[in-house]
């Protein structure tokens, strides 16, 4: 069964460094998302992406964050200058349908980001 994959599974970085989290969505899906989950807290929406554009972003997704679909398979989240509070699990998700249809989102296993 097709699934969303993410790499790396765990990333440790120093405060102020740039990190890139990578995702391979399900192949026939058109809508891509990033969420994060700080330890012990709710899963929070960061950004959604369709047709090579951001379609919605949360207030968390500030200028330090960017997303890109550099080729036909990968979807990346970049954090330019990491802060201690960026430490969290980052989940990529994808869905096939859009427009006015409901969007059933399938999640990857996550990348645990630890900022020291």
């Amino acid at each position, binding site marked *: 069964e097709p699934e969303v994959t993410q790499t790396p599974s765990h990333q440790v970085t120093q405060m102020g460094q740039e990190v890139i989290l990578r995702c391979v969505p399900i192949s026939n899906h058109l809508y891509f998302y990033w969420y994060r989950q700080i330890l012990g807290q*709710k899963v929070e*929406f960061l950004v959604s992406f369709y047709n090579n554009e951001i379609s919605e972003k949360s207030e968390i997704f500030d200028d330090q964050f960017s997303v890109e679909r550099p080729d036909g398979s990968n979807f990346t989240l970049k954090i330019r200058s990491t802060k201690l509070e960026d430490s969290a699990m980052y989940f990529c998700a994808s869905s096939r349908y859009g427009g006015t249809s409901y969007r059933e989102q399938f999640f990857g296993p996550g990348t645990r980001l630890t900022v020291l």
Partner: protein
Amino acid sequence: TQLLEQSPQFLSIQEGENLTVYCNSSSVFSSLQWYRQEPGEGPVLLVTVVTGGEVKKLKRLTFQFGDARKDSSLHITAAQPGDTGLYLCAGGKYGNKLVFGAGTILRVKS
């Protein structure tokens, strides 16, 4: 701000018992998705309900979407230790993001 309140936060029951988890909001959602999440892993989709009053069954799990599409419930019949885990509800609108509840930690003791 759209919020989804889940209750209870924690549930510990004996094997064979029945249980219900609730997900409530003051907002209307176009869909309500239930996920199960294991520690250190991503949420795994269990079911999606989209029509007010809809009921879906997945083996011993029964999911219901409220008539007004503001609330949902997950009922487990004859719980088993393998049902232990974190259950999340997430509401979607005709847009992009899912709004997640805080989750219900279920522990089924044998």
